């Protein structure tokens, strides 16, 4: 197959002769170079230390408002632009599980730098998981050792976050509970991983739960900020 999974154009990069001859595994992206260049990375040194958005200053205006949970730091890999929206829609809402591999290598590299004890993907509720057939965040982290440290309280979601406005999102109650005993988190450095950081409500709920359980440090990593 040489067709890009996102734009369906026939322009995937073919392995070079050098790659074929040096007998190392060839990393082939299922997306073409044009699409990959369309994803706009957020450089770590030009982002808000609170939420990870592209921001020249240290803390963005949103995060100043979040000061109640000042400890929490999130890093976002990409801006949530139209192309990434299209990607997420095909991956998550249409359920094209093949797309999980696109950012896997990058997640591996970044998470290695974080140097944490536990990597916890944000869980999705059972009904969604049954219908979608996969947890989109766990898909990104397929090649890493992760801990299912959290689970959702509700079996079914009445309204997805994406259907709410900012005020409604911020008023969302704690949706998670611990999935393992508290001792598992005691004095541990934890990294929570989610797909999109919007208001920060979801990931901060998760962070609070883990800090209360005794984690020494909780940080966040999301694919995108938007």
């Amino acid at each position, binding site marked *: 197959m040489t067709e890009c999974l996102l734009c369906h154009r026939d322009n995937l990069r073919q392995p070079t002769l050098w790659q074929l001859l040096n007998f190392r595994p060839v990393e082939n992206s299922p997306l073409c170079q044009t699409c990959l260049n369309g994803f706009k990375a957020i450089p770590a040194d030009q982002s808000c230390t609170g939420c990870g958005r592209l921001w020249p200053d240290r803390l963005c205006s949103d995060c100043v408002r979040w000061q109640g949970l000042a400890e929490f730091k999130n890093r976002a890999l990409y801006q949530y632009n139209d192309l990434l929206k299209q990607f997420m829609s095909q991956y998550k809402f*249409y359920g*094209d*599980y*093949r797309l999980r591999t696109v950012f896997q290598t990058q997640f591996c590299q970044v998470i290695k730098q974080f140097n944490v004890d536990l990597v916890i993907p944000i869980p999705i509720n059972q009904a969604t998981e049954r219908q979608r*057939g*996969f947890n989109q965040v766990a898909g990104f982290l397929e090649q890493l050792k992760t801990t299912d440290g959290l689970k959702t309280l509700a079996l079914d979601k009445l309204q997805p976050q994406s259907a709410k406005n900012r005020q409604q999102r911020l008023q969302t109650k704690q949706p998670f509970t611990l999935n393992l005993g508290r001792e598992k988190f005691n004095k541990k450095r934890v990294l929570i991983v989610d797909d999109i950081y919007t208001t920060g409500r979801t990931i901060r709920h998760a962070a609070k739960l883990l800090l209360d359980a005794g984690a020494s440090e909780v940080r966040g990593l999301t694919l995108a900020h938007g």
Partner: protein
Amino acid sequence: MQATQLFGRQLLADTMPNVSEWQSKLLRRPAMTLTAQWAICQRCGQRTVKQTVRLPRNNYYCPHCFQLGRVTSDQWLWSLPEPNQFARQSGSPLSWTGQLTPAQTACSQEISEIFAAGKTHLLWAVTGVGKTEMLFTGIEQALMKGLRVGIASPRVDVCLELAPRLQVAFVSIPQIVLYGEMPGSYDYRQLTICTTHQLLRFYHAFDVLVIDEVDAFPFAADPGLAYAAEQAKKPTGALLYLTATPSKELQRQERQQKISVSYLPARYHGYPLPEVRLKLTSKWRRSLRKKQLPGAVKRTLKQIVTNKKRFLIFVPHVKDLAILETSLIQSFSALKLATVHASDPERHAKVQRMRDGELDCLVTTTILERGVTFANIDVIVLGADDGVFSTAALVQIAGRAGRKAAYPTGLVQFFAESQTRPIKEARRQIRFVNRKAQREGLLGVHDHD
């Protein structure tokens, strides 16, 4: 759920739908079949290597047709056999009173026979021949017998253009138009007009199914849609393909006599298709970047402008539009022109202005290759050797010229850096149908009506 919603449809679900008194008639098929290596989708018929589409719960999904709701191997396709629950027609439902030419009548006759016999057939009719009108008699007879009729096209704009014409021709027959982002919801009607993608939702529904423009994207490129067409009709149903530019595959099936073909090689006005003139022009993009038109292009355009003709210029890519526009304005300042591409918000307005004669020139990409008619125009293709111009696209583009009886001729000029296979093939196809028309005595019967 209303039982009518399932007549001849296939609904994807993991639980049994409730259709009250029709419950015993419900048909259930697994949505995918699995072999040792393949996962084969039962909706679009395409197979995928199992490993690439495995989900964590050890089931599989189809990566080809997920746009219409993802098919997974643990689901079922539910349907109710088509019962043809339509009001009986006492008189003829056809309210169209136009006249067909003798050649059209012969074709129309043939189509009616195909419909009645439930055969698969290809109608190769050149561009601008009045294909829709030739279907009317066949459709009329089918509707009177209480048969379910479907007309599908790969292109939404063709569907939207076809629907009102059919509504006018068959006033008393309820119809529904189905496409991806349609405003309403599905309804059970005797006459269905839809995009070919929507056929994936039907199962053994149509007694008569017509697929228009089989050579157009995406139908030609997507084997799942051909499968959908086969599956959307009843096993005994008729399937008619319409095209102006049959693919190699269809031509092969004809030679192997797997499919019957009828030809209509001449337009109703009895003039041959304008033949393509080709001029080799090197490095046209470089000239354009210098805001100049290549010499040969400029000479041709000058000729067209002195003749007071209006014209279309096709370019391979959207990014070529702007640079060509600047060079055109540079050389022909008095020219009223506009550029149009697929995602242009003013697309329809600009096409309408061209139709109304407010514009002299429309610079465009392949989106205007089919389905539009302008009177008295010349056609130019710049960079005809580019990969986006397939044989079918080039024949269609050439077919924009000379469509009206009042102006049955026109210049078709290609500029290319080299002669490519699609260019050769397109010129060959046009010459072939013109020769065929000549042999059958269809040319020179100029009737202006």
